[in-house]
């Protein structure tokens, strides 16, 4: 009898198994390349806004001769003020970049929080079904039936009114945190429903039955068998959801429930300058609008591409 060694393949961890599952990108689509590079540039600007030399003049009000000279600009873009300036003479480009920092942080933090919470609840509802499902479904329905503006009033208007929030490790503006909480609460239910539906169908698959037959615990099945198969859909939803949240933040800013100065978001800037549209303030509205639109578009393009690559149809918000 020959010495056969039965090689037991070691289980790859979740990340490598996911990476292996990504089909190779045969053709980089033009739109995708454009979107990714736009997002990369924007993120770079936002992250390094404090140190980049050309975004200095943030929130600087011009004085004396400078102010008189700016009055003749009437807010038009120039080699010095790339995006022009608003009625107070502030540099729209610098403000837009700082607003990108705030807007992207708000969107990213809310979508990550919503994916973690909604994903967990959705998995529990879809896997255990029965009473878990019933109770969680009622919670999701309640969240969906809650008018967003009432939620914003309660959360931002009361609990995170003003001042600083100290969470021990890090400190941040209270209202800023409140906006993140509102957007997270708004997006938990739709995300959880997508995850629930996917988990429901995944938990009927043969490999899950096999794992259960081999005596795997529920948590092991959820984490090792179901979660890796959910990740592509969640990944795609993360981008589309981010786009939706950026729009939602703009709406909140319009109603006065978003961040406060000196930290504008794009929605805030649009709302701030729209009353001056007739007084030559067009550029101060135009550039935040363009940035907001392009960013939402870019995230939608990326989300759409990811969804097509993994052949996901359910992952639309």
């Amino acid at each position: 009898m020959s010495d056969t060694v039965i090689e037991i393949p070691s289980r790859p961890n979740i990340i490598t198994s996911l990476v292996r599952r990504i089909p190779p990108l045969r053709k980089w689509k033009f739109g995708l390349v454009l979107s990714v590079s736009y997002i990369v540039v924007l993120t770079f600007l936002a992250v390094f806004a404090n140190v980049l030399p050309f975004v200095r003049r943030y929130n600087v009000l011009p004085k004396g001769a400078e102010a008189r000279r700016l009055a003749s600009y009437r807010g038009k873009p120039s080699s010095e003020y790339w995006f022009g300036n608003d009625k107070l003479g502030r540099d729209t480009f610098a403000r837009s970049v700082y607003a990108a920092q705030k807007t992207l942080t708000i969107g990213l933090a809310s979508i990550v929080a919503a994916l973690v919470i909604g994903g967990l609840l959705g998995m529990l509802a879809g896997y255990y079904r029965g009473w878990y499902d019933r109770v969680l479904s009622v919670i999701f329905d309640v969240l969906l039936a809650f008018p967003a503006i009432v939620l914003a009033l309660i959360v931002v208007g009361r609990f995170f009114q003003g001042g600083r929030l100290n969470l021990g490790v890090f400190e941040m503006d209270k209202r800023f945190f409140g906006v993140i909480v509102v957007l997270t609460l708004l997006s938990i239910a739709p995300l959880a429903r997508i995850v629930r539906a996917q988990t429901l169908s995944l938990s009927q698959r043969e490999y899950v039955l096999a794992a259960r037959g081999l005596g795997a615990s529920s948590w092991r099945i959820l984490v090792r068998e179901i979660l890796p198969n959910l990740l592509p859909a969640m990944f795609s939803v993360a981008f589309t959801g981010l786009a939706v949240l950026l729009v939602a933040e703009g709406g909140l800013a319009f109603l006065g429930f978003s961040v406060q100065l000196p930290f504008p978001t794009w929605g805030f800037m649009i709302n701030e300058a729209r009353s001056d549209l007739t007084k030559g303030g067009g550029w101060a509205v135009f550039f935040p609008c363009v940035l907001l639109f392009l960013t939402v578009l870019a995230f939608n393009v990326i989300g759409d591409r990811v969804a097509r690559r993994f052949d996901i149809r359910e992952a639309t918000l």
Partner: protein
Amino acid sequence: MRYFAQRFLQLVVVFLIVTFVTMVAIQAASKDPARDLAGPLNSTEARVEEIRKHYHLDRAYPIRYAYWLKNLVTVDLGNSPTLGASVRTLVGQRAPITLLLGLYSIVLALAISLPVAVYAAYRRDGPFDRFISGATFAAVSLPNIILAVLLGYFFATRWRIFPYAASKIWPWDNPGEHFKNVALPTVTLAVGLVAIFVRLLRSDLVNTLQSDFIVMARAKGLSPARILWRHALRSSLFSLMTSVALQFGGILGGAVVAEQIFALPGMGLLLFQAVQQKDLLVVQACAALFALAVVIINFAVDMLYAVVDPRIRHARALG
């Protein structure tokens, strides 16, 4: 039948939870609800105490809620101190405007998206289809605040085609002025809807057009128009109908921004003003109405599914 009962029970529970949470949260958010309800002007101590007694604000939340529910049933939800009218009158005046706004935008969106989607699916991957695919993608990504600001600037401020600060004119009083007033908010809401509907219907139609009965219809020699509009469209309408219902619920809740920018006095604007002026009873009533609309529409969609597809009602009743 058990499925219907289950869903209905869930509807009631959801409605009760939403209204209860709204009440507790906004009353707890106020420093003294009785003082807010007495209004900024006539807030003598005696008056505040009278209000406190009248609305049972000295009792525990569950009891207050029970009284509120009783008032809801008898449609007597108290008075708004800031707007000087009863909540019932206010809601009665404002709700039809938002309903009409939602209705108009859905009708407009359907009128545009049906022919566009049918033609795009018919000439799949042709130039028109590609253009529409790109255009709808852009329209989905266009935030409604940007659209509203642009429409407002060009059509109201600059060219003065439509009025900006819309006033409330009923369609039966003066149809021309009425439609002028609601035109911009309607378009604001409809653009996103068109994009959603076109994408949904087009992809469903493309699937349907590949099925056997279409080949059969074509073999029989039916005209393309007849195949598209009678055979293919009818069997592709199901998910569109679902989407229409859900979007209608979304509009009722999401009309706040459109109504606020164009100053259209509907429910959204009422809720917004009430929130700003701490008009607690109006906020509660509006929230309850929005929640009721969303919950009923969800219920109707579920029932529609269950009636059409028996697998759903059995699967869910078992699960």
